[in-house]
């Protein structure tokens, strides 16, 4: 029976356990207090982009009051995670709402959810599954797990991570991916180019010799092959549209009238004792309008803009029966124009820049100044004013003394025969005078002329009515014939100078891998033209880029699924989708060492 018993000292067992515990904690404490303590507790090497931060734990780890107050942070509260996420944002700029899901604002999130819900797409979300803080924030470390080795790809998420929140299970394009509702033609292109009209009509006319042979004659991959960009105006459009831009077909001259004396019925003004001083006489014979740029410079105040609007509506070639109010408008505008020319003549470029800045209420950038002036020769303005017998200085002095001079005819148009020669002289672009309508003109230097572009931009920015004149399809340069105009967030118009400026929040797509496979023979595998598309051009008559009808049929997910099947090739969510929206790529800003040290000290 004695053999069936075994004597074990429980005390010894307990002592062994306690000794083990003491030895374990003691050795650990010894190492922690030693010089290699940090490397001992490091849970793993940082990913290579963060490797240089390995010696400074505090750059990424918060030791704020929250962290001390909540030793169980991460389990019972996510405050610590969010505190640490804010440290991530010291270097990673992620927009205005960096910690909300997809970096959306509440309104954007609502909008997207309702939009996706309407389309029957990824409408169901596992709300309860989303690890949000009380403020609706998600910590960076929820998706980006550090301390997993140098080769750990922090930015790569797997499908299960996406589907923690997105309830719809997607196995890939052929199985479960929602159909595209309008992709990739969900918004208007920056350039108004009607593919159907060109292919079906223009390229079959006598312009056939200029027609491209294939899509890649006009559309080429950009540097990294991600986007297909236009091959450039010279290679694509110039053969047919070059003359329109050069302005050779313009009735009133190839150049844009910049400063002029609009036509006035000076005889009637003289008879009715209207005091506007001398005014170029023969201007009344040609219906010279107020130049849009001069009008922009004159319209600093609301009152001045109202006057200019009424001025353009008055029949200024016959003022014999004009109402007193209208004559008042004519008088005010005439004197303001004289003041403008006096200032420009006296101050030159500085005066012009000052006037534009006053109108925009902001200083101009160096590049803007250069483009808006485009080397306007001071001598040319002086010559023009002399030739048109402008006596603004003396007349304004008389006006100041309460003795404004009466309206008289001043200049003649005797030198107009030389006008075509002056215009031809600047065939490569530049400034010239056109005496037939008393105008100082600028002839555009072909496509993307910086002067026209800059003036379209400033008039658009200020929401000025002159923008409509400069951007009309018949205006010099004919910019808006092809370049779309969109309403900016504030409602002001904005020229679309590039083929596409819109970015899709949740999507990234690269053409490069799609250009080589044998299966894809040409662009029409994915981009299929409609048979007819009457609404394409009318979409450019308004300024909302989302109201759009493309020349192309919406893509089918089945087309993508032919290659992107689970068996054939990469088929993950992140292959096409991005998490962080509103950004081309999360920007890494580099704080200075001092900023980092201050940050550490602040913690």
């Amino acid at each position, binding site marked *: 029976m004695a053999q069936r018993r075994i004597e074990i000292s429980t005390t010894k*067992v307990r002592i062994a356990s306690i*000794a083990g515990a003491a030895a374990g904690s003691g050795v650990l404490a010894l190492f922690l207090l030693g010089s290699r303590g940090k490397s001992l507790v490091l849970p*793993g090497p940082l990913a290579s982009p963060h490797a240089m931060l390995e010696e400074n734990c505090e750059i990424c780890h918060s030791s704020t009051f929250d962290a001390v107050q909540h030793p169980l942070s991460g389990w019972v509260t996510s405050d610590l995670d969010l505190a640490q996420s804010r440290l991530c944002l010291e270097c990673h700029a992620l927009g205005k709402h960096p910690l909300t899901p997809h970096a959306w604002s509440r309104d954007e999130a609502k909008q997207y959810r309702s939009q996706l819900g309407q389309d029957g797409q990824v409408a169901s979300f596992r709300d309860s599954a989303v690890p949000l803080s009380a403020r609706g924030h998600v910590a960076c470390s929820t998706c980006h797990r550090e301390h997993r080795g140098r080769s750990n790809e922090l930015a790569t998420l797997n499908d299960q991570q996406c589907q923690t929140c997105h309830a719809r299970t997607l196995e890939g394009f052929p199985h479960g991916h929602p159909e595209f509702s309008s992709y990739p033609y969900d918004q208007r292109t920056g350039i108004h180019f009607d593919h159907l009209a060109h292919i079906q009509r223009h390229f079959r006319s006598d312009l056939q010799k200029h027609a491209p042979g294939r899509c890649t004659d006009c559309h080429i991959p950009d540097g990294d092959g991600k986007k297909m960009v236009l091959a450039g105006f010279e290679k694509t459009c110039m053969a047919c549209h070059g003359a329109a831009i050069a302005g050779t077909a313009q009735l009133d001259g190839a150049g844009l009238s910049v400063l002029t004396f609009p036509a006035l019925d000076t005889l009637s003004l003289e008879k009715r004792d209207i005091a506007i001083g001398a005014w170029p006489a023969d201007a009344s014979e040609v219906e010279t309008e107020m130049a849009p740029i001069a009008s922009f410079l004159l319209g600093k105040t609301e009152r001045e803009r109202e006057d200019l609007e009424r001025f353009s509506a008055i029949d200024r070639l016959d003022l014999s029966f004009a109402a007193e109010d209208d004559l008042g408008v004519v008088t005010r505008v005439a004197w303001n124009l004289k003041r403008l020319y006096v200032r420009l003549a006296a101050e030159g470029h500085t005066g012009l820049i000052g006037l534009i800045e006053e109108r925009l209420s902001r200083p101009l950038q160096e590049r803007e100044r250069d483009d808006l002036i485009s080397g306007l020769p001071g001598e040319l303005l002086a010559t023009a004013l002399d030739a048109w017998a402008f006596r603004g200085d003396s007349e304004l002095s008389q006006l100041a003394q309460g003795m404004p001079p009466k309206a008289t005819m001043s200049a003649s148009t005797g030198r107009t025969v030389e006008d075509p020669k002056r215009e031809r002289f600047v065939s490569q672009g530049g400034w010239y005078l056109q005496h037939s309508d008393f105008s100082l003109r600028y002839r555009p230097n072909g496509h993307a002329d910086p002067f026209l572009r800059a003036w379209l931009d400033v008039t658009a920015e200020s929401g000025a009515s002159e923008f409509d004149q400069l951007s009309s399809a018949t205006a010099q340069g004919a910019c808006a014939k092809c370049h779309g105009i969109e309403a900016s967030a504030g409602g002001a118009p904005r020229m679309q100078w590039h083929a596409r400026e819109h970015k899709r929040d949740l999507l990234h797509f690269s053409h490069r891998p799609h250009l080589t496979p044998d299966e894809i023979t040409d662009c029409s595998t994915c981009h299929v033209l409609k048979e007819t598309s009457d609404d394409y051009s009318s979409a450019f008559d308004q300024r909302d880029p989302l109201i759009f009808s493309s020349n192309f049929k919406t893509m089918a997910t089945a087309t993508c699924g032919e290659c992107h099947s689970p068996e054939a090739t990469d088929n993950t969510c992140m292959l096409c989708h991005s998490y962080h929206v509103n950004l081309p790529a999360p920007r890494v800003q580099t704080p200075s060492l001092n900023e980092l040290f201050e940050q550490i000290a602040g*913690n």
Partner: protein
Amino acid sequence: MTAPRKTAVRFAVILVLSTAAAITITSMASPLAHGLYDASLITGWVLLILLAALAACTWSPRRGLSALGTQLRWVALLTAFTMIVFAGHIHNFPPLGILDRGLASIFLLLTASSSWGFWLSIRLRSHSSPKGQTAFRTWLLAHSAILGVLLSTGVIHGLLIHCHGVMARLLDK
């Protein structure tokens, strides 16, 4: 088959099955493990409780060989369950740091020690001898010491994880 051999086979089966269960459960739970929630903190504290239970089980006095068999069976079961939780615990965070790898090694040592102790107890119950009793006593002391080391370093590891912000400040100084 003799009773001790049967028991040894059972123990081997338990170990194999628990390993298979650990692998199956963690791979089945991959949406969770790869998802946005991190179960490591919770499983860590569950592990601590399990290890404490193991320690309590080891500390309990058992003088009869039959009672010892029951005790060792409990130890084996608890160890197997602890192994499953441990697999889940490290699934999201494979140990890469020195301390973490040390802890994982100690855990494996404890599992190996459990197997060894169970084998010793089987031998003791079939051929009880003073030499066998001494070997078992020595194992028990060593096993208790390993358990003690694992418990203490595990607690420190848990505290370091929870208070890593404070640790960062202390270690940067």
